[in-house]
C-alpha cells in the first residue's frame, strides 16, 4: 500500500477534498447487486470504491431463546477473508472482524430492521433464525459501512424457503419477504486532524485519529454507536459527526431502495 505523509493528507483536506478528489463527506462509487448467491435465501454484493464484499442471509427454523420465546433470532458474522487482503490470515475472526460484526449487529437489531416477533412460528418452540454473513472479497477500506449496506440489502432481498413443521425445504423458495420494519444503516465518520470525513481511502485511514460509527434508521433515530481510534472526541465533535452521518445515511438509503 502507498504510504502518504500526514502533511500531504492535511493539505488535501484543507482544500476540502479526499486524495481522490471527492468531497470529504462523499462516498466512493457505490454499486449494489442482489441475488449474487443462489444458495443463500438473500444476498447482496457491495462495491464501494475498490472494496468488494458479499453478504448472504441464511434462514433456519430453531428453538427460540428462553428469555424471548416469541421472537426470532438474529446473528451477524463477519469474515475478513484471507483472499481479500494480504494482511488477513486464515483462522478464527480477529478483533477487526468481531467489531464489524457486532457493530452491524447492533445497528440491525436495535434499529429493528426486522420485526423479530413476526419471525415466530410457534411461541416457545419454533422461530426463524436470520443469519447474516458478511464476507470480504477485496478489502480496501470502508468495511463497516459497506457491511451495513450489504446486510440491509441482503435482508430486503431475502425470501423464505418452504417448510413443513420444523423441516425447511431449502430447494423450494417462496416469494415471501422477511418482516422488515426499519432501514438502519451505519455511517462511520472519521476525524483526522481537525477534519471530519467519511469513507477514507486505505492510505488515508492509516492516519485516522478517531472514528465514530453511527447507525441511523430512516426516521434518523440512532440505533448504534461505536467510537474507535485512540484520540478522544469532544461533545461538539460528536454532534458534528452525527450531523454528517444523518445526511450521509439518507443518501445511502435512497440508493439502496432504488437498486434493491
Amino acid at each position, binding site marked *: 500500500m502507498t504510504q502518504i505523509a500526514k502533511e500531504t493528507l492535511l493539505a488535501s483536506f484543507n482544500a476540502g477534498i479526499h486524495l481522490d478528489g471527492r468531497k470529504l463527506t462523499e462516498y466512493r462509487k457505490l454499486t449494489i447487486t442482489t441475488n*449474487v*448467491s*443462489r*444458495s*443463500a*435465501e438473500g*444476498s447482496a454484493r457491495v462495491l464501494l470504491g*475498490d472494496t*468488494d464484499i*458479499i453478504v*448472504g*442471509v*441464511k434462514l*433456519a427454523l430453531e428453538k427460540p431463546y428462553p428469555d424471548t420465546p416469541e421472537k426470532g433470532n438474529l446473528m451477524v*458474522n463477519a*469474515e475478513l*477473508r*484471507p*483472499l*481479500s*487482503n*494480504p494482511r488477513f490470515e*486464515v483462522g*478464527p475472526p480477529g478483533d477487526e472482524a468481531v467489531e464489524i460484526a457486532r457493530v452491524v449487529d447492533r445497528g440491525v437489531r436495535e434499529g429493528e430492521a426486522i420485526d423479530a416477533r413476526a419471525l415466530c412460528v410457534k411461541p416457545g418452540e419454533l422461530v426463524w433464525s436470520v*443469519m447474516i*454473513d458478511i*464476507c470480504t*472479497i*477485496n*478489502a*480496501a477500506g470502508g468495511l463497516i459501512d459497506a457491511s451495513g449496506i450489504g446486510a440491509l440489502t441482503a435482508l430486503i432481498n431475502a425470501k423464505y424457503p418452504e417448510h413443513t413443521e420444523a423441516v*425447511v425445504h*431449502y*430447494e423450494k423458495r417462496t416469494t415471501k419477504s422477511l418482516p422488515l420494519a426499519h432501514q438502519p444503516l451505519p455511517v462511520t465518520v472519521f476525524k483526522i486532524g481537525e477534519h471530519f470525513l467519511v469513507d477514507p481511502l486505505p492510505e488515508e485511514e492509516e492516519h485516522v485519529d478517531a472514528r465514530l460509527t453511527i447507525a441511523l434508521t430512516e426516521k434518523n433515530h440512532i440505533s448504534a454507536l461505536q467510537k474507535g481510534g485512540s484520540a478522544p472526541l469532544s461533545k461538539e465533535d460528536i454532534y458534528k459527526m452525527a450531523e454528517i452521518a444523518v445526511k450521509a445515511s439518507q443518501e445511502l438509503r435512497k440508493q439502496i431502495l432504488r437498486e434493491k
Partner: protein
Amino acid sequence: MGYEKRFDGRGVEELRQMEAKVGVVKNADGSAMFKIGKTTAIAAVYGPRDLYPKFLQNPQTGILRVDYNMLPFSGHGERVRPGGSRRSKEISMVMANALLPVLDLKEWPNAVVDVFVDLPQTDAGTRCAALCAASMALADAGLLMKDMVTAIAIGKVEDKIVVDLNYEEDSYEHGSDIAIAMLPGTGKITLLQMDGQITPEDLKEVFAKAETACKKILEVQKTALKEKFKKPEGIA
C-alpha cells in the same frame, strides 16, 4: 432402468454453462473467478511472499499453501459453519497436490505462495471449479507454469457415465462422483477422488470423457486470461 435423460436436460457429455474472469481481486497478486452452472469459485494468489513462523520455511524451495473455503451461505441446505472442517482441510490438501506439479518454486526458497479459494454459491463440483479458478489465478500472478490445471467431476448415474455432475446427480443414490484434475498438455492426472462405485472398465470411459471436458475448460480459461492481457485498443 437406465438414466435416459439428465435431470437438467443436458446431454451426457454436456458441461453446464461456464464463465471465467481474471483479475477479480484487486489486492491480490493474481486472481480469477470460475463459474460452472451455479457453482462459483473466486481464487486469489498472494506471493511468493515471506513465510512465518520461520520453522515452516524450506531453504530448498518455496512452498504452496491452498485454502479452500465454502462461504457460510453457499451450501445447498443449512448454513455452513465458518472456520473450516475436516472436509475443507482435505480438499485444500488435495488441491495443493493437484496444483504443485505445474509450478516450480525452487527459485523461491523460504517463501510461500498462498492460494485462497472462496465459494459464494455451490451446486456440486466445488473442488473442480476451485482448481480451475486457482490455476488461472496462478497464471495471473505471473508464476512460471508448465501447464494449466483443469478439473471436472464425472459420475455414473444408473448405467450412464455423465460429465459435470450437478447437485441432484452428485447426491443420487448408488451414483458415483469422481473428481479429476488433468494437465491438458500431457493428459496427466493430478487429482483423483471418488465416492461411490464403478468398474475398472468404466475408468477408461471416465478418463476419455474427462479429457474432452478438460479441453473445453482450458479454452474458457485461456480466453479469460487473454482478455485480461490483451493490448488496449489503439496501441499498435
